[in-house]
């Protein structure tokens, strides 16, 4: 971070400050770094420590990892998360980009602003609270959309949350609560595309579809990759949605559904922090690997 204003000043202060030119920037970043260390890096290190030690604190090799993988719930939980990630990432990319483009093309200014606000609104609710909203939405007896559910032949809450419906249900909840922020981000990125470029495309005879497909989406690529990387990490840590669903249905759906729930069970039901940490560390590795893959394949850090 450069601070040209400081260099411009006269007197001894220049000499004193020159050895640390980015001071203001560091001051701004410092609180974040402190929080990152406290709530990000230290707990991660702690989890890694737990994952490789046994209950007496001795080095345990990979035994915690093999114990986790050998649990009868591990395979199904991993499969659940994989299917959910597929649903969630595809819906995110398709609908977020689509809606952002739509928003960008809305000519009426007031309408665009209203839509932007509406998209963002669910994200403004606190996470667990917005999931709670869905528990009502999914119960045909009390849901305002109950007629829709009944139209699909779903008359009771139990039928709505049948095991086969869960990837869709969880994706719908996650999209509703989390996509609004991304739509606003994509919309901002679209606004960054120079109007001359779009003008040129129009003069060359490109319609809205061609402009979107050949100009706007290629220019959004890095933003989309950025979204996918973060959404992958968040999605792999699926927890609140199935956990609340499980409590609302008294355990009929969503119990031991995701890997993070399994980790939670290991930690607090079986008092086995080592195995719980092993699951967390596995998730971290998978997310990091996916991120590296996306970064390399997309040329994320290449200069334009």
């Amino acid at each position, binding site marked *: 971070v450069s601070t040209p204003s400081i260099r411009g000043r006269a007197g001894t202060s220049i000499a004193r400050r020159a050895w640390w030119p980015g001071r203001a920037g560091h001051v701004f970043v410092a609180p974040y770094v402190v929080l990152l260390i406290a709530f990000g890096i*230290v707990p991660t290190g702690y989890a890694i420590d737990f994952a490789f030690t046994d209950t007496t604190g001795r080095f345990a090799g990979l035994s915690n990892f093999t114990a986790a993988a050998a649990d009868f719930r591990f395979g199904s939980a991993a499969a659940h998360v994989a299917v959910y990630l597929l649903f969630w990432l595809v819906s995110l990319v398709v609908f977020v980009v689509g809606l952002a483009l739509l928003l960008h093309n809305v000519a009426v200014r007031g309408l665009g602003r209203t839509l932007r606000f509406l998209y963002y609104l669910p994200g403004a609710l606190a996470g667990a609270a917005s999931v709670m909203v869905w528990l009502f939405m999914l119960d045909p007896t009390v849901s305002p959309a109950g007629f829709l559910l009944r139209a699909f032949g779903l008359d009771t809450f*139990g039928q709505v949350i049948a095991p086969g419906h869960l990837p869709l249900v969880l994706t719908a909840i996650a999209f509703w609560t989390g996509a609004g922020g991304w739509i606003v981000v994509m919309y901002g990125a679209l606004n960054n595309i120079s109007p001359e470029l779009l003008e040129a495309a129009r003069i060359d005879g490109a319609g809205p579809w061609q402009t979107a497909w050949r100009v706007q989406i290629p220019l959004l690529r890095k933003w989309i990759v950025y979204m996918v990387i973060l959404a992958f990490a968040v999605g792999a840590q699926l927890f609140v949605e199935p956990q609340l669903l499980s409590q609302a249905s008294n355990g009929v759906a969503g119990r031991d559904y995701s890997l993070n729930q399994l980790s939670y069970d290991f930690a607090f039901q079986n008092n086995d922090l080592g195995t719980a940490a092993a699951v967390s560390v596995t998730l971290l590795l998978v997310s990091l690997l996916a991120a590296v893959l996306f970064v390399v394949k997309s040329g994320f850090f290449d200069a334009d």
Partner: protein
Amino acid sequence: MTVKVRADGARRSGKGRSRAALMALSGVVALAACGGHTGTTGSQGGSQGGFQQAPQTNGTLTVWVDSTRLAAAKLYQKTHPTAKINIVSYDGDANGSNYLQTKVSLFNRTRKGWPDVVFSSQNNETSWAVQAGFTAPLNKGLIPQSTLAGWAPGANSPCTVNGTLYCLRNDLAQTVLWYNAPLMKKWGYKIPATWEEYQALGQKVATEHRGYLVGSAGDTFTPEIFMWASKCGANQITGAKAVTVNTTSANCTRMAALLDTLIKNRSMSLSSVFSTDFDKNQADKILMLPGTSWFGGALFEGTFKTPKGQIAVAPMPQWSGDPTPAVGNVGGGTWLLSAHSTNLKAATDFLTWVTTANDYQGKVAPGYPAYAPAAKVWLANQTSSHYYANDITGPLQTAAGQVWSGWGYGQFSQEAIWAATITPGTTSGKSIVSMLPAWQKAIVNYARTNGYKVSQ
């Protein structure tokens, strides 16, 4: 939104200082910080009453209760104005939430914060709490034998581990047959004494009065109402960490087949009695409902607001030819005393009062008291309220002694296993009989995960 849950804490005193510093940074501290003792060290602790006692301080007593038992703690405060008591309300561990176990495992790491007395709506807490060193033995000097003798026979068996009593049962949850007396009379039906008669009546209701119900199989406690009462050996806890599971014996299949028949002809509901769906569409269609003793107050009077003079109680039906009648059981809360308490005298006093005093158990408590003398007063009170259409005393008292002892109280939740394994299947039209092997497999898996040695 997703949250990554991490558990931190000092595992060994050897790494104590650096661990503690790390912990101060981690979010878990915020969770664990409530309810710590700050009293000064008074008399020295020691090994009395069968466990190593903490130094006693006579400080403030911390009591955790669920919303229903809040009335009990408040009443104690009112009737004991000099007692220093801090009442904390929590979810009571309902529906296997494991809140208490989660918190105690965190307190065990921070070495402070334990509540002195806890109410739990679950009756299997000793399965982990004894191992975690959380519960104090009660029959080794803390509570006199003469008091303990007052509990209904077998009431404290979920609290007993190797002959030592680690908790006190709050209420019994023996199952009975609830029914709508005016309706039964109007339609000229006889109260079924056997399961065979019950099934025949269910089939009759299905044809003669379509839409009316003879029971519900949509709850997590369905196995405890029906399978337990049928002496199905799905949950035979044979030792501290040993269980025998057999879900395909004749005792299990006969009840599963009965449920399948009645589910198919729709006289047996598949909705939970506590669901919005049931309350809205089915609550006024109940002809009979096998359920527990607390259905009367909690469900009919509280949730359904069934008018006075309709609901009556009969003994649970039995299989014809079975010489020993058996009933099931759904919950019945327990009170635990912390072995870490620095206020053992006050804690014991509260515990004794809350489980035995007529002021609470006899007159206020919503469930059938586990302490027999209080149960007598409670039954008399229920009778004098004239809410029920018949005298509920006889059937409830008899059922209290008939809870089949072959179904144990393990660490894994049978309710949760049934909910996740059987309920989605019945919702999609599968028969319970066909899912019995899957039920067996799920119980075995969960038992093993919890460290149980499983015999099949």
